């Protein structure tokens, strides 16, 4: 009955359960930190191994900062500081 429902919700839509600790937004915790598209090392934290932007539900970022991070990553990609994908052919 109370199986952990790891996949997408089944047809009867059971109540969503959160397990584990709620992650906190790094940029909310540290108010001095600024999101900047040139700060490649911090932004890399929000990229998956394939170079995709990590969703909020994984990274735990708040909505405001997730938007800013996504914007910054897209800017950084434009100017070739970050990859669009890891499989850019050489």
């Amino acid at each position, binding site marked *: 009955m109370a199986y952990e429902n790891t996949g997408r919700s089944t047809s009867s839509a059971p109540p969503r359960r959160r397990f584990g600790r709620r992650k906190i937004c790094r940029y909310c915790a540290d108010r001095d930190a600024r999101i900047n598209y040139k700060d490649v090392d911090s932004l890399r934290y929000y990229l998956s191994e394939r170079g995709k932007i990590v969703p909020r539900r994984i990274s735990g970022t708040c909505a405001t900062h997730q938007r800013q991070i996504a914007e910054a990553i897209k800017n950084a990609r434009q100017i*070739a500081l970050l990859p669009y994908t890891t499989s850019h052919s050489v």
Partner: protein
Amino acid sequence: MRNYESLYIVHPEVVGDELTALVDKFQKVLGDIGAEIVKLDNWGVRKLAYPIKKVERGNYIQVLFSAEAKVVAEYERRLRLDEQILRFLTVRLDHDFPADAAESASSTSAREDDEDTADEDEEE
């Protein structure tokens, strides 16, 4: 007047006097169309995250300036015309220039040779 930050990538084979001339050219473009340059910085040759025009590395030049909005359009048009510019990005700064930018536009383009090796360790 608004504050802008522009970053452009110069072809890595443009070095020395050629590079200085190129950077000066765009500084002049900015000056002529009424922008006030706050800072010019050469990041040196870095590896690009992906090849642009089949080039793997590029020389990053950063310019901070304040200007009217229509200046940016003209500036970008000129950047687009130059074959040696691989890519450029201009963003508006919502806040004032960072404090270290105030030390003016003199930290320029003479250092590209020794940075060639120093930048290697920034990559993964």
